[in-house]
């Protein structure tokens, strides 16, 4: 006997993600899921972003890593409320899921926040499948990774609301082609691209204005 089912495989995760989103909406917090390779500079981008948003918007952070609380400590030193998820405690997961985020949310005071950054585990593949209850996704790529990443990881780039290309201060030292990167990106998404350097601070203003605009229109 064959029975038709047609149910999302990640239905249980998606249900928890809806709970997370409802909690965030009730508190008026814009949640952004940051996805990128290890070393692409996600944490550095958040450090810069927190400092530049501060006069206008209050940022909070949930950090996802397999091990250590280093990233949450980095953001804490910038005066940002930060919660660390260590996935080594839950089977070394290569991605965050809605259950982990829901638990982490209980450790933040949402009424004191305007924007919540959820920094996913460094990985350009696995996090893409998991809805965390975020309002938007931002993919962070970087110049040393090479200009072929949108071609190689289309499922991740296709679901981004915005893409950051970090470490543009290293462009003169590499054979990275901005044209090739942009062409690959435009194959899968029309999302805005912000080219910047979290190290030198170059190019951050358009990114900060975009985030601020997203929060204001919500």
């Amino acid at each position: 006997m064959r029975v038709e089912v047609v149910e999302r495989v990640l239905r249980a995760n998606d249900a928890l993600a809806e709970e997370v989103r409802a909690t965030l909406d009730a508190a008026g917090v814009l949640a952004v899921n940051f996805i990128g390779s290890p070393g692409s500079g996600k944490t550095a981008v958040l450090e810069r972003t927190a400092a530049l948003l501060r006069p206008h918007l209050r940022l909070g952070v949930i950090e996802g890593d397999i091990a250590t609380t280093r990233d949450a400590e980095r953001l804490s030193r910038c005066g940002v409320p930060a919660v660390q998820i260590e996935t080594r405690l839950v089977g070394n997961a290569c991605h965050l899921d809605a259950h982990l985020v829901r638990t982490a949310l209980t450790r933040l005071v949402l009424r004191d926040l305007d924007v919540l950054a959820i920094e996913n585990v460094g990985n350009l593949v696995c996090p893409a499948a998991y809805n965390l209850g975020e309002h938007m996704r931002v993919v962070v790529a970087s110049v040393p990774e090479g200009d072929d990443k949108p071609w190689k990881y289309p499922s991740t780039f296709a679901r981004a609301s915005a893409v950051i290309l970090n470490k543009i201060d290293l462009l003169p030292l590499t054979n990275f082609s901005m044209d090739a990167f942009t062409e690959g990106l435009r194959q899968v998404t029309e999302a805005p691209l912000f080219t910047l350097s979290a190290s030198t601070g170059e190019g951050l203003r358009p990114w900060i204005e975009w985030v601020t605009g997203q929060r204001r229109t919500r």
Partner: protein
Amino acid sequence: MHEVSIADALLTEASLAAASHGLRAVNRVGVRVGRLSGVAAEALAMAFEILREGPVLGRAVLDIEDADGDDLRLAWLEGE
């Protein structure tokens, strides 16, 4: 290798669906995997085979259909 997590979620959904349709033993599980889902079919099949257990799903074979976009669905069950 998030396919282990995906396979685990798939087995949970298959188990719920089998119970609601009164299936006591499932032979085949049909799943649709979108080309942009970020899920590797071979890795999912391997994880499914390792994780399947019990009288209802312990012998179930996974049948993976290619799909468009980021679709990732349990499509059908075959069993008694």
